[in-house]
């Protein structure tokens, strides 16, 4: 009897753990290669005709004792991928192409809205919510860190956009 109860409690705990694991899996996934770790790569869902997209990575952490250098990105979903920085000078916003970016030992960089962003140019298909696509982060001498990017809803309140469908004119 007691054994049965213990067994059911165990199963419940296992289910709970599985739930926690899967939710954290969707929300924030980390990818590690040698001494670098990329956490939560995500892209904004785009509209149907969009030719550009954007990828953000919550953090890229260098756990090693030597500096690492990002020298580029690659993906099969777009013709061109570039790291850009949104810069505002004299009230005018510009995007600056960042050719390479150093991350010091023990340091992290954050690729987030309004600052650094990975721009996808010449999108081959629109980015749909809940889809995934591969993105490779290329490091000088170190090699390639392979990640999967989660496509999230446009608004980061996680609220579905209102749909205004015009079925007839």
């Amino acid at each position, binding site marked *: 009897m007691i054994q049965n109860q213990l067994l059911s409690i165990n199963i419940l705990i296992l289910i709970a753990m599985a739930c926690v694991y899967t939710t954290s899996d969707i929300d924030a996934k980390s990818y590690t290669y040698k001494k670098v770790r990329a956490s939560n790569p995500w892209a*904004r*869902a*785009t*509209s*149907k*005709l*969009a*030719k*550009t*997209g*954007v990828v953000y990575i919550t953090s890229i952490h260098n756990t090693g004792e030597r500096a690492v250098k990002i020298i580029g990105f690659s993906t099969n979903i777009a013709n*061109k991928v570039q790291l*850009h920085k*949104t810069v*505002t000078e004299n*009230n*005018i*916003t*510009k*995007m600056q192409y960042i050719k390479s970016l150093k991350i010091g030992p023990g340091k992290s960089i954050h690729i987030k*809205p*309004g600052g650094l*962003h990975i*721009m*996808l*140019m*010449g999108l081959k298909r629109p980015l749909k919510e809940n889809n995934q696509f591969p993105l490779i982060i290329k490091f000088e001498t170190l090699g390639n860190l392979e990640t999967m990017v989660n496509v999230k809803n*446009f*608004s*980061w*309140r996680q*609220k579905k*956009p*209102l749909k*205004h469908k015009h079925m007839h004119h």
Partner: protein
Amino acid sequence: MKKIIYSILAILVFCALSIGTFFISDHYAQRWQSNKLFKAKLYDVEGKTWSIKSLKDKLGIIYFGYTFCPDACPTALNNLTIALEKIDKNKLQFKPIFISVDPNRDKPEIIKDYLSSFNTIILGLTGTDRDLKSFTFNIGATYSLSREDPEDEDYLVNHTVGFFMINSEGVRLPIPYRNNSEDLGQAIVRIKSILMSNSNFKKFSSIF
């Protein structure tokens, strides 16, 4: 003694004249710019022409951008829609407007598709390069293409960041850029009160 009185009078007249000239020239500059704003022909995503007269009783909140812009523009428009949901639930006071300054690539159907991703209905406009140059200049904004190779179709556009509030008479004020919906909402409320309290300006402009 008389000399002193005359010189004081002369100084007073001079001051009055310069202050008057300042106000009148400033007023004319605004009027001139407003006329240019009325003349600039913009069109919406259905191809209908649009002018600031179309705003009627609403206050337009204009953002200049382009649909190829993946970071700054969606972030700004997203902040605007969140801010307006809070301060203008019934959508009676404000009209959010996105003006594409990249008419070469941003055809009406692309603008329509781009704006369909947002939580609220944003009026999408564009125009010829000439009309857009005139409209942006006279509202106090600017844009330029960042294109080294004329064949390059993946060029970027540098443009004014931030929003402009405008009424149907052409009275307008810039809304300082805020990268957060809460602060942006507060700024909009504040700018609106300044614009609405500026009734002297309206009376003044009706004289001419």
